[in-house]
């Protein structure tokens, strides 16, 4: 298998986080009380909200790495790889958010989908992530790619507050944010606590994914460079 000691440590850590997450989700699916209005099906909250948060987190990471790659002289390739990994994992979580949201919408709202501001802007986020990845992989490495990707990174980052505020700025089917950053949160203790646990573990998983994917991208680049040099007989 040829994994290094560091590889094994990293994957053990990941396994640990994942095991903890499985425990929390088991609690979410069976142990936590049902909800007063929605009944049992509200439990999807415990995956849907953390997924969305991770999708937003990735946008922030992408933004940070994009700026860093423009500002810092070196190591630029590094920031580019971390940015790409953030975009990939960001897309992963955005799709998961849309899918779990849809599964939640059908039994509660009565519809799989609607083009209200919240759902539309989140869908746009997925498209933007996709476009970023296509652009990044279709352009040769260099200043132009860095700049174009940085611009895309800014657009993606800008969509996040729009998504968050969409339910307040416009009339939507989707309800306003429960986790508001001001005043009281309209969520009972046991529900909120479990949500926070799931959120923290999902964020940890998200960071782990970005970290490990970046490492793989770096290894791949290393392999390609080395392979090219050896082929040339240097």
């Amino acid at each position, binding site marked *: 298998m040829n994994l290094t000691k560091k590889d094994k440590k990293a994957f053990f850590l990941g396994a640990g986080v994942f095991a903890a997450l499985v425990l929390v989700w088991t609690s*979410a699916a069976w142990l936590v009380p049902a909800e007063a209005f929605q009944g049992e*099906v509200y439990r*999807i909250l415990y995956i*849907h909200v953390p997924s969305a948060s991770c999708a937003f987190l990735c946008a922030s990471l992408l933004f940070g790495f994009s700026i860093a790659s423009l500002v810092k002289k070196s190591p630029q390739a590094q920031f580019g790889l971390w940015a790409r990994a953030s975009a990939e994992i960001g897309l*992963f979580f955005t799709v998961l958010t849309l*899918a*779990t949201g849809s599964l939640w919408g059908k039994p509660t709202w009565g519809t799989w989908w609607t083009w209200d501001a919240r759902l539309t802007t989140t869908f746009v986020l997925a498209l933007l992530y996709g476009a970023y990845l296509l652009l990044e992989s279709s352009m040769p490495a260099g200043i132009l790619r860095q700049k174009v990707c940085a611009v895309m990174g800014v657009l993606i980052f800008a969509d996040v507050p729009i998504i968050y505020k969409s339910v307040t700025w416009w009339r939507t089917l989707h309800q306003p944010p429960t986790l508001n950053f001001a005043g009281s949160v309209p969520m009972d203790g046991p529900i909120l606590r479990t949500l926070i646990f799931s959120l923290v573990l999902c964020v940890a*998983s998200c960071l782990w994914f970005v970290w490990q994917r970046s490492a*793989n991208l770096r*290894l791949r680049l290393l392999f390609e460079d080395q392979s090219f040099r050896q082929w040339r007989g240097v």
Partner: protein
Amino acid sequence: MTNTYITAAFTLGLLAFLGLALWLFLQRSRLRILIKTLQEEEGERKDA
């Protein structure tokens, strides 16, 4: 009935996380082998 939706959502989440982790693991494994093979070839070439 709503249980179907809950099951689907959590199963999707679990499989997605597991799948991604597995993919990263297999990718890492493959890359390590490829790099090692390259280094061995380099070594052989230099000896020759």
